[in-house]
């Protein structure tokens, strides 16, 4: 394997580059004024509610420094929860607590213990804007822990496997499943070593899997073959992702979904600048699909119609 590829071959493969994505898609189809809707998780949640898109249940919003003092009382009612900076990006500043031991010992997914003090410090960091874009003051949201379906969680090493669907003009055009690994420290970020599994838009069946941009067949930690993966309820998920277009008005977004054991598909967050690694996970370029949608003369009006169109057009 040589370590470089010629730009011509990349183009023939239809790979979308960073510059083209920024100028040709994000810049052209995403209206700046709608960015706060997706950059602020709290706003996204409220918006999703209006459009009947389910999200993990919101437990508390910490807005002021003095509210942190009461955090312990509130957390006492919860078993597992996730603390997120509302304006965080790239999964930064998200702390997931699986369960509680004793009065002020919290256990992370990795089995590490956190004291109540640590959590409070984390909250105050979030409020000060440590994780927000540009360091602006932020609010922290506390939501129910997502418990992924056993079918998916057995593939993942800790963490919650999530499904990233790129939605262009309301059409779900490409999808991948992100599985955390030991290397990624239980996080589902591909550049930290999580596994990306490309999913067939037509069926939710795994196509191809990569870790650190290299093709793999088995999960490095769980040792399970990736090709066995097939997402249930696939059409509902596509339609849900599709609906986010109506909700935000953004033409080019990444929709992050999880499959909860009891609640079914839930919207985790939206991303107005979805990454390009999804192409590597799928082993396919985004460009031909983007161009297919761009050349549609009569777009479909309902999310279900668009999902159906995408399934027949882009399915394997």
């Amino acid at each position, binding site marked *: 394997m040589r370590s470089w*590829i010629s730009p011509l*071959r990349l183009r023939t493969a239809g*790979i979308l*580059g960073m510059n083209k994505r920024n*100028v*040709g898609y994000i810049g052209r189809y995403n209206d700046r004024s709608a960015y706060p809707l997706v950059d602020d998780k709290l706003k996204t949640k409220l918006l999703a509610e209006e459009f009947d898109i389910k999200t993990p249940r919101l437990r508390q919003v910490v807005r002021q420094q003095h509210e942190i003092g009461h955090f312990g009382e509130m957390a006492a009612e919860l078993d597992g929860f996730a603390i997120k900076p509302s304006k965080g990006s790239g999964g930064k500043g998200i702390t997931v607590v699986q369960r509680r031991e004793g009065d002020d010992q919290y256990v992370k997914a990795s089995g590490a213990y956190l004291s109540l003090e640590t959590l409070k*410090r984390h909250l105050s960091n979030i409020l000060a*804007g440590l994780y927000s874009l540009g360091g602006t003051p932020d609010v922290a949201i506390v939501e129910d822990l997502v418990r992924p379906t056993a079918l998916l969680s057995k593939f993942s090493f800790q963490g919650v496997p999530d499904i990233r669907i790129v939605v262009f003009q309301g059409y779900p055009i490409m999808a991948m499943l992100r599985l955390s690994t030991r290397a990624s420290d239980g996080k589902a970020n591909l550049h930290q070593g999580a596994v990306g599994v490309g999913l067939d838009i037509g069926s939710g069946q795994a196509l191809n899997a990569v870790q650190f941009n290299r093709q793999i067949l088995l999960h490095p930690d769980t040792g399970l073959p990736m090709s066995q993966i097939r997402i249930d309820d696939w059409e509902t998920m596509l339609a849900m992702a599709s609906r986010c277009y109506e909700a935000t008005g953004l033409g080019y977004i990444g929709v992050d979904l999880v499959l909860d054991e009891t609640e079914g598909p839930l919207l985790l967050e939206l991303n107005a600048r979805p990454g390009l690694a999804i192409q*590597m996970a799928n082993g396919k370029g985004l460009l031909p699909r983007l161009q297919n949608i761009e050349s549609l003369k009569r777009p479909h009006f309902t999310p279900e119609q668009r999902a159906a169109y995408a399934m027949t057009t882009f399915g394997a």
Partner: protein
Amino acid sequence: MKQRSRYPFYLAIFLFIAGGIALATARHVKLGIPWLAGQQQAVWMVEARIDFEAVGEEVLVSLNVPDNPPGFRVLSQQAASPGYGFSLIEDSGDLRAEWSVREASGPQTLYFNVQLTPNEADNSNNAPTPKPQPEAVFWEEPEATAVAEVLERAAAKSASPESMTRELIKLMQTSDPDQNISLLLNSESYVPLLRRMLNHAGIPARVADGLKLEDARRLQPLRPFLQIHNGERWLTFHPESGQQGLPDDVLLWRQDALSLLDVIGGEDSQISFSMLQQTVPALQLATREGGQNGLGLLSLYELPIEEQGMFRMLLLLPLGALMVAFMRIIIGVRTSGTFMPVLIAVAFVQTSLVPGLIAFLSVVAVGLLMRGYLSSLNLLLVSRISALIILVIAITAGFSIIGYQMGFSTGMTVTFFPMVILAWTIERMSILWEEDGAREVMIQGSGSLFVAILAYLLMDAPLARHLTFNFPELHLVTFGLILLMGQYTGYKLTELRRFRTVKDFS
């Protein structure tokens, strides 16, 4: 989501780039601001010395001085003449220096200095001038017949005023002159004779005085040159060789005026010339006279010195920004903080590279260690950053003092780094370390340093410093290039590596 036409945008970029280059070229040509730093240019200092014997009455001395001589540009003119009133007078295209005094007696000496620089690009003397009437010339016999005969011979071999002049000079210069020519040469001095003969033939002609410029010569005389008007412009001929055109090292002191020197109230007047060549940085020359020209308005040399120093630095920033844009858009290097590299590069410019690099790395390293302790203190972000700023200042001061005690003045250079930027860099790096691991810190840190060093090398190049400050309009070009890069939708260089496995796709 309609896309607007891109043509006006590209047209604007083209106008920016073309405008910047055109303006810079215009200023280069008109003001002589050199493209390269450190270019030297010759400057001639010519001194005319006038000696005469005053007779005890009021004295008026009038000297013709060079006004727009071909091939040269006059930089300054001044007179040294104790006791005399002096003024430069322009009289129908004839520039004269005039000295006057109420009463003087005995030997008098007046000096007139002119500074000139060779100016090849000067085309002002090539502009067509209306053809003057040839002077009416009267000859007495037997010269009249001789002139008619010689002119007829020259005319037989020539077709234009130029060739006529050349033929005439050739005839007059033959080693074996015939009767007619000998007669003429004996009756009158040579160059005025040529002038009269050419005027007689209907070709306007005049005698100009030239001065051969040679370094460190004294008591040089003026040498006559013949000038004829060919209907469009004045042409200069060497009266002996008949060679057309003025040698590069000859300054035409007098062209248009009738007399070189008039002295009223004195006798025995003499004029002699001495000269000296100096080399002056071309830039100094250009800035000295820049203010007189409309294009000089753009010159930053008009500003007070203090502001100039600031602008020298500020005007380098666009180059750094250009470098960052290039490295991030075309190459795809990842940096921590978009323009942090530029600010580091600016600090490098002031500290020079190696001491700056050492200082930067040590401050950041020590800062990271201290930040580790701070993070265990559980502080709010704002006060943590504030504490970090104070720590950075303390580290800087520590380095300076230690460096100074050990005899390195380089320790002091740390102070050039923007403290707040350093503090934020440390904070960002530290968070990056905690969240993404040391590898990411290394990638982004070395990426930032790499871009900073490249930006520094670009900004520190003498040519870049020279061009940005002396041709601020070139920033239009930088601006255009940056806008153009904002349109680049191709792959980044690093993406060719990132997506290399695409080859294995079916």
